[in-house]
Structure formats: C-alpha cells, structure tokens
C-alpha cells in the first residue's frame, strides 16, 4: 500500500543566539519568581485580617449607613498596613520596592481598587448600599487574581476565594453582606496570611 510521505520532524537544532535569547528570558523569569517569594508579607496580611475582623464587629453594631464609613476607614488602614508590611519585608530582603514583580503586583491590584472607590461613591449616592459588599469582594478578588500572576501561588488562590465569596454575596440576600465582609476581609486574610508567613519567610 502506498503511503503519503510525511514531512520529516523538525529536528533543527537551535542556533546559539536562539539559545542565548531563551537563557536571558529564563534568567529574567526566574529572578522575577524568586523576588516574588520574598516580598509578600504574610504577617501584614494577618494584621489586615485582624483589623478587618474588628471593623466587621464595629460595623455590625453601627446604626444605619454608618457601617459604610467604618469599612472605608478600615480600607484606608489596611492600605497603610499593607504598604508598611511590604516595605519592611523588602527592606529585610534588600530588594528594591518599585522594581520587578512587586511593581506589577501593585499595578494589577491598583486598577480594581480604584474602580472600587469610584463604584462605592456612585452606588452609595444612589442608595444601593446592599450591592457594595459583593462588589468590594469581587473587585479585590479580581485584583489579587491579576496581581497573583507575579507572586506566589497562594495569592491567586486567595483572589479566587474572594471572587467566589463576592459572587455568592451578590446573589445572596442583602442581610448576609456584613457577614460576608467579615468572612472575606477578616477570615481569608488571616488564613492566607498565616500560610504565607509560615511558608515564605514572614
């Protein structure tokens, strides 16, 4: 039986400059990955989680829309704690703060956070307070998922948890919103922060 001759497999060896380009790419990726191992502060995440737990209980007892003010103050506090903890860890590891994966992580996280600020103002003005918890959780989760591409694997996993919790909160009765905020910004931060601190040097 006649067979159609197939093209021989492409076994052309790489040229030296192709190998050099691949090596340089590999070095860059490895260095970025290694830096990510040391810059995320697990202790900082735990501190953010604990302060969110406090804010959650405080917001629960706050009358009317005052809960919103409590969470806005908590968000600002969490931002300061996060920046300070990252600063401390990069200083210990003697790494530049605004270089490589940390910068990319910050930029990826900043976009959904900015969207969150604008949406919060617009939705609160329109009186749609019940939508806010789900929106906050989903936006923060998507920021972590995007920024997690430049960090350790735990970060995108944490982002996915926030995203799932946010989606469930959006579809659930509005009365569950405060509990979801407590579970997400409090519980998830403490759990994942402890895992990062235990496995990745503080």
């Amino acid at each position, binding site marked *: 039986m006649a067979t159609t001759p197939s093209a021989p497999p492409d076994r*052309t*060896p790489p040229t*030296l*400059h192709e190998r050099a380009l691949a090596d340089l790419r590999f070095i860059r990726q*490895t*260095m970025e990955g*290694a*830096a990510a191992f*040391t810059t995320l502060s697990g202790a900082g995440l735990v501190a953010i989680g604990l302060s969110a737990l406090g804010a959650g209980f405080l917001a629960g007892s706050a009358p009317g829309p005052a809960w919103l003010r409590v969470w806005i103050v908590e968000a600002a506090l969490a931002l300061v704690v996060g920046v300070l903890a990252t600063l401390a860890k990069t200083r210990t*590891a003697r790494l530049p703060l605004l270089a490589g994966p940390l910068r990319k992580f910050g930029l990826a996280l900043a976009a959904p956070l900015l969207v969150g600020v604008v949406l919060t103002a617009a939705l609160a003005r329109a009186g749609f307070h019940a939508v806010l918890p789900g929106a906050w959780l989903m936006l923060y989760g998507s920021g972590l998922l995007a920024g997690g591409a430049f960090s350790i694997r735990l970060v995108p996993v944490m982002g996915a948890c926030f995203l799932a919790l946010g989606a469930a909160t959006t579809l659930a009765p509005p009365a569950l919103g405060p509990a979801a905020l407590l579970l997400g910004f409090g519980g998830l931060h403490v759990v994942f922060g402890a895992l990062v601190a235990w496995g990745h040097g503080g």
Partner: protein
Amino acid sequence: MAEPAARRRRTERPAAAAPALRGLKGEPGPDVVRELDALLHHRLRLGMVSALAAAESLAFNDLKGLLQASDGNLSVHARKLEDAGYVTCTKTFENRRPRTDYRLTTRGRQALGRYLGHMEAVIRAARDTLGR
C-alpha cells in the same frame, strides 16, 4: 574514593563547555565557546543562581518549587554550585524541622554577570549579522 572538589571543578569547566554547545547551529566564535561557564550553561544551575541573585537567600523548598525540580536533582546541582564556590549553604532547624538555605556568593554573582555578558554578546553578534 571521592573525587576532590577542586579537581572536579577543573575538569568540569573546559570539558563540559563543548558538549553543552554541541547541537547548536551557528558560528559562536572560539572565544565565546571557550569562555562560557559550563556550570551555568546547565538550565537548573542557571536557574538556581538567577533566583539567588534576586533574593538574598532562598530555602531548599522555595528553590524546588520555583524551579519545579525534584529533591535529588536539586541537591546534586546545588552541591556542584557549592563546590565551585558560587553558592553557600546553611543548615538550621525551624520548629524542629531541618531547613537548608542557599545564598549567592560574590564569586557566583560575578559568574552570572559574565555569563549574561556572553549571552548578550552572542545576541549582538547575531543582530549584526542580520543587519549586514
């Protein structure tokens, strides 16, 4: 009898440089081939040195996860880098569990810098050829 580290290093460098480049097309030029550090031309060892150049120190498990290497493979190549004086290794206990940390030495950092220089020279030469 175990081969002394110094002798192993001497035989590794020039001898392994040629096989590492075998199978590559192009005209690398005798100087580039001769000067390429065979220790760093291995992908896993290059990865270890690159990772340690970015982080002050990394634990064995961090390196293993980062480079997707097996325990045995990573140990063997870490030992070669240690023998060459490119990395140092510290063994401690953390919560009663043994922990091994690696750091890049000045010699290792210089070797990586030289290797990067060679790779850049190869790419520059290829670009010049294309430009003609």
